[in-house]
């Protein structure tokens, strides 16, 4: 035995010797051991052992154990019952499958040997046998025929018909055309229908259990087999974990992805469980990925239980919306909301297939017609397929866009599109699933609107020439009465009292605080109720108390839901949150008191600007999430009368550039569903007491592209029906890169400066907005949601070679430095932006400016960055009232400029080519123009003279001579959405 000291010597010599060349080691050890032969021998023998160690201990113990399995005796040639094993076909979690020969009937069979651990329990084995035999006995062409279930020498086996073909898993690797997807799914649904009608549930529908024969016939395997693996019937909530740990991880990983929420929870299964799994398989056939994925089983389970799979638009497929509808309907977390029978799925799939075949026959010009590739459309060089997709979408959506201010038209199209879908699928109708949208006003300037509890009155505020006024209308006769005359104070947050007799509204001045007033609906003077209120109020069911949001309260970095009695007395904080979590104090959001009086629902924001909705217990302030889905914009929420759900306004993560839409969320359950599906931005929300009608205010922009030579508005002419979003960018050779929308998806395009030769550069990959072109014209950098996050991406000018520049940054407003080496951008949502820069070739981003700011632009000499800037000491003041200029290396502003007028309508900031001034768009008297702010601090001057409409976006050519802008009317109206159930 070695002593510790001796071992220390051995260690040192061993390592020192190893560091030397082999031929030098002997000499080294001779010298180092100074005649201590046993030490020398010890070290030498260890080195010898080291040299010949091979892979000794390289593989962990488990793997050593596993590798031994390879030595297992071969089955080939063995006789199992009267089947002679020929060769191994495959190994699955549920046993090994061999090709075997039936020695009695002289035919080939597939022989599956069941693992012992699943056959130990006789009762379970018998149940499985019954079910498997029953399924086989159906003699359905799409169900695999079982010849025999037997036992031989303690070995349980199943002999089935032998299919020459491949599993759907293998088949999917080559990609499936839409018609093949439908073909396979119709056959699987047909098998399931037959089985379900006989009371048999598969329990484990997945691509591995579906065989596709060479002639296209589909066979569903292993009916009832999952029953063997199941735990006892009484699996509790921890069942899923237990199931995971009890079975083979590979197997479980495969199975888990297709597992229904009820299986994941260990609840009993029924036919609708198979429908879920079929939905998963369908999704995967179309998307090329499973709907619920994650690095670990736990993550996959969490996704199954809590998340919605990525939408088709975000995963680069243009399979028809109807198919997505079928899949989503199959993947409802609540069984009651899914298709209830396989028969329903089958008939919808068949109908879709017929419809597409019909369309395909209609378009003879294209070979195999509307065989729409369901696989990913590469972003590059696929203009043809993108066009096909756009055409298809266009056909479905009707007139997606009109640009002549015909809001009504846009509207009809949107409603028609929904109506089309609802006619197509006759389903159990859920709240606000079948709707009618009516435009109530025609003023173009409605900021906020509310409906009385009885639905008889509409009250709305109007913004005209920077002044707000409040109006009352009797819905039945469209008679308007002004109740508060125009003034500089903004009027927002309109709420009726529960009895409908009083009206509460909030006024807000730029510099003064906000005040809640009450006024009798049928005339009277306004009475001040309380101050410092940052949302509409919501009344308790008895009407005696109200809840509202207050920012910078109780402490500066906090915000709170406050409850007070209806006259403003007895304030108490129900719940407060510290930044970055906050009740965002804007007037289009706000709390909602539940009909049972126990909960107050409210939007809750978090940084980066993702938010969701929570409900707060009125007694103790405790919070519960209403949904796990995150939103980039959140508006008002309201309860349905029966508390089966809530309705709210929001814009989800994958469509951050899309306007706020009206959604429904189930309660409890938290499943979200979009009620509206159009290009209109909805804002507030109020509901009648019976929850059959809701009123919201809408904003629609109907812009087109104008060109003004020499920047002269008088010579401006409309050159293309294009809306653009945060970035018209000139290339060095005078072309224009822009982002525009088709069918609800924003993509990057390029065109000549006269609007001709328009070509799409991105497609089928998320929302793509705000392009910037590098000074050398090599690259375009833009904001994209293609990775399901909001990040900057770079492509070549031809659309190729995409590269992600930021990671989960919520990065927007990209702008190049003049040397082309950096991209400057804003991080976080508007109101909390901070400015960063990242190398164009990729690399670590660097923070530049940590004050609330957005739209950074670098000066032509590369030394300065200008931004829209908010330096209000009040962290809840969301007005960006200044332009700030700071060094390109970062730091405090060296210059700031204050704007006059309305601070809410500026979007674009540009340097003049000389770098001596900044240009921005600004609205005054309902018209926006471009203004020039000299850097030397002189007065800002209006440099265009448009007489109407708003400018959304503008760019001067690199020589400064041509002005391009997208402009048009912004139409804001009160809308009523009626539930047609």
């Amino acid at each position: 035995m070695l002593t510790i000291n001796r071992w220390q010597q051995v260690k040192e010599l061993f390592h020192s010797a190893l560091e030397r060349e082999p031929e030098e080691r002997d000499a080294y050890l001779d010298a180092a051991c100074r005649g201590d032969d046993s030490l020398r021998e010890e070290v030498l023998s260890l080195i010898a052992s080291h040299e010949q160690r091979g892979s000794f201990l390289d593989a962990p113990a488990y793997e050593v154990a596993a590798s031994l399995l390879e030595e297992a005796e071969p089955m080939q040639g063995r006789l199992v019952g009267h089947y002679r094993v020929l060769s191994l076909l495959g190994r699955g979690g549920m046993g090994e499958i061999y090709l075997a020969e039936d020695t009695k009937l002289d035919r080939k069979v597939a022989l599956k040997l069941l693992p012992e651990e699943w056959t130990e329990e006789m009762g379970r084995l018998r149940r499985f046998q019954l079910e498997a035999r029953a399924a086989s006995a159906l003699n359905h062409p799409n169900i695999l025929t079982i010849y025999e279930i037997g036992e031989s020498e303690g070995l349980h086996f199943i002999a089935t018909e032998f299919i020459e073909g491949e599993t759907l898993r293998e088949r999917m690797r080559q990609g499936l055309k839409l018609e093949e997807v439908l073909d396979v799914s119709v056959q699987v649904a047909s098998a399931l229908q037959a089985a379900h009608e006989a009371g048999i549930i598969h329990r484990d529908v997945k691509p591995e259990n579906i065989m596709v024969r060479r002639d296209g016939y589909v066979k569903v395997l292993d009916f009832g087999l999952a029953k063997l693996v199941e735990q006892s019937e009484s699996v509790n909530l921890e069942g899923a974990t237990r199931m995971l740990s009890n079975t083979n991880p590979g197997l479980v990983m495969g199975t888990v992805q297709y597992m229904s929420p009820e299986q994941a929870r260990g609840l009993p299964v029924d036919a609708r469980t198979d429908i879920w799994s079929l939905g998963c398989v369908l999704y995967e056939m179309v998307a090329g990925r499973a709907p619920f994925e994650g690095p670990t089983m736990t993550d996959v389970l969490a996704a199954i239980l809590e998340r919605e799979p990525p939408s088709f638009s975000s995963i680069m497929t243009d399979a028809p919306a109807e198919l997505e509808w079928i899949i989503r309907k199959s993947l409802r977390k609540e069984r009651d909301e899914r298709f209830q029978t396989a028969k329903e799925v089958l008939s919808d799939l068949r109908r879709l297939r017929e419809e597409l075949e019909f369309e395909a026959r209609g378009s003879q010009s294209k070979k195999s017609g509307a065989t729409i590739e369901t696989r990913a459309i590469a972003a590059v060089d696929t203009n043809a397929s993108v066009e096909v997709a756009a055409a298809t979408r266009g056909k479905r959506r009707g007139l997606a866009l009109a640009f002549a201010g015909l809001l009504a038209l846009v509207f009809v199209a949107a409603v028609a599109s929904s109506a089309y879908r609802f006619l197509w699928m006759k389903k159990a109708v859920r709240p606000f699933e079948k709707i009618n949208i009516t435009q109530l006003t025609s003023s173009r300037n409605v900021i906020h609107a509310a409906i009385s509890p009885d639905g008889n009155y509409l009250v709305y505020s109007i913004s005209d020439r920077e002044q707000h006024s409040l109006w009352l209308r009797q819905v039945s006769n469209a008679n308007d009465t002004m109740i508060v005359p125009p003034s500089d104070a903004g009027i927002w947050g309109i709420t009726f009292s529960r009895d409908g007799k009083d009206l509460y509204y909030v006024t807000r001045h730029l510099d003064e605080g906000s005040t809640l007033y009450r006024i009798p609906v049928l005339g009277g003077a306004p009475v001040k109720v309380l101050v410092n209120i940052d949302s509409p109020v919501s009344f308790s069911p008895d009407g005696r108390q109200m809840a509202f949001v207050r920012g910078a309260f109780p402490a500066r970095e906090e915000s709170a839901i406050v409850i007070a009695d209806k006259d403003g007395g007895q304030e108490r904080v129900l719940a407060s949150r510290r930044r970055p979590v906050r009740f965002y104090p804007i007037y289009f959001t706000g709390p909602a008191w539940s009909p049972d009086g126990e909960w107050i629902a409210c939007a809750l924001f978090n940084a980066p600007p993702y938010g969701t909705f929570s409900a707060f217990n009125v007694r103790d302030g405790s919070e519960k999430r209403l949904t796990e889905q995150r939103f980039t914009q959140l508006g008002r929420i309201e309860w349905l009368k029966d508390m089966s759900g809530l309705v709210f306004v929001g814009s989800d993560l994958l469509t951050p550039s899309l306007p706020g839409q009206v959604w429904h969320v189930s309660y409890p359950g938290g499943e979200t569903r979009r009620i509206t599906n159009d290009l209109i931005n909805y804002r507030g929300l109020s509901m009648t007491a019976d929850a059959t009608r809701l009123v919201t205010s809408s904003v629609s922009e109907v812009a087109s592209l104008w060109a003004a030579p020499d920047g002269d508005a008088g010579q401006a002419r409309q050159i293309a029906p294009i809306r653009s979003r945060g970035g018209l960018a000139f290339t060095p050779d005078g072309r224009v890169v822009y982002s525009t929308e088709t069918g609800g998806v924003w993509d990057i395009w390029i065109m000549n400066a006269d609007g001709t030769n328009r070509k799409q550069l991105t497609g089928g990959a998320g929302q793509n907005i705000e392009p910037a072109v590098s000074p050398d014209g090599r690259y375009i950098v833009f904001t994209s949601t293609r990775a399901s996050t909001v990040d900057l991406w770079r492509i070549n000018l031809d659309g190729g070679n995409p590269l992600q520049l930021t990671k989960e940054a919520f990065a927007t407003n990209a702008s190049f430095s003049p040397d082309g080496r950096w991209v400057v951008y804003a991080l976080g949502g508007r109101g909390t932006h901070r400015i960063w820069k990242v190398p164009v070739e990729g690399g670590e981003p660097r923070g530049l400016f940590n004050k609330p700011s957005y739209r950074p632009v670098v000066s032509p000499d590369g030394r300065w960055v200008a931004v829209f800037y908010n330096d209000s000491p009040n962290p809840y003041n969301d007005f960006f009232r200044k332009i700030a200029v700071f060094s390109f290396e970062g730091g405090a502003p060296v210059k700031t400029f204050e704007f006059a007028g309305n601070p809410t309508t500026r979007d674009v900031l540009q340097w003049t080519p000389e770098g001596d001034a900044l240009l921005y768009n600004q609205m005054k008297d309902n018209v926006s123009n471009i203004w020039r702010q000299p850097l030397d601090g002189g007065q800002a001057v209006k440099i265009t003279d448009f007489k109407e409409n708003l400018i959304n976006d503008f760019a001067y050519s690199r020589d400064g001579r041509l002005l391009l802008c997208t402009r048009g009317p912004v139409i804001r109206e009160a809308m009523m959405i009626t539930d047609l159930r």
Partner: protein
Amino acid sequence: MQPPEGVTQLLVDWSNGDQSALDKLMPVVYDELRRLASSYLRRERAGHTLQPTALVNEAYMKLVDQRNARWQNRAQFFGVAAQLMRRILVDHARVRQAQKRGGSGQQQLSLSHADRIAEKPDIDLLALHEALNDLATIDEQQARIVELRFFGGLTIEETAEVLGISHATVERDWTLARAWLRRELS
């Protein structure tokens, strides 16, 4: 899917110096790992890549309440798990060896691989176990490293994290320990 109460607290107590917490912790983790390990060993087929850390991870996820655990607790847990895995595999090997000695000699055709695992490697495993005990008497840290790497399936980095020593030290010790064990076992 709430982890059972107690394991997290025991880990925390242990890291606060309460040695009795470890004694209470061991049987719980042991049971869970044994169950996991046996199912892995029995069900895993050749051709799949085994990920032993995944196994310990599953046990950790199952047993420890992530919200209340400290970051050190994960390393601790992996340390305990490796030790326990060694015990489990060695126990398993002993049972197999005993069965063989008293062997009825019957050759059953069985799909349960538990029977086949044990034939030759049991001896290796038991010998390794004993050699590792010997190594521990002259260099405890090296024995621990082998335990973590071989029985716990940890990488060099993870091992360094668990023991709170540098990667380089782990590498060096691992090299020597392997050479030493190889020599002892040949």
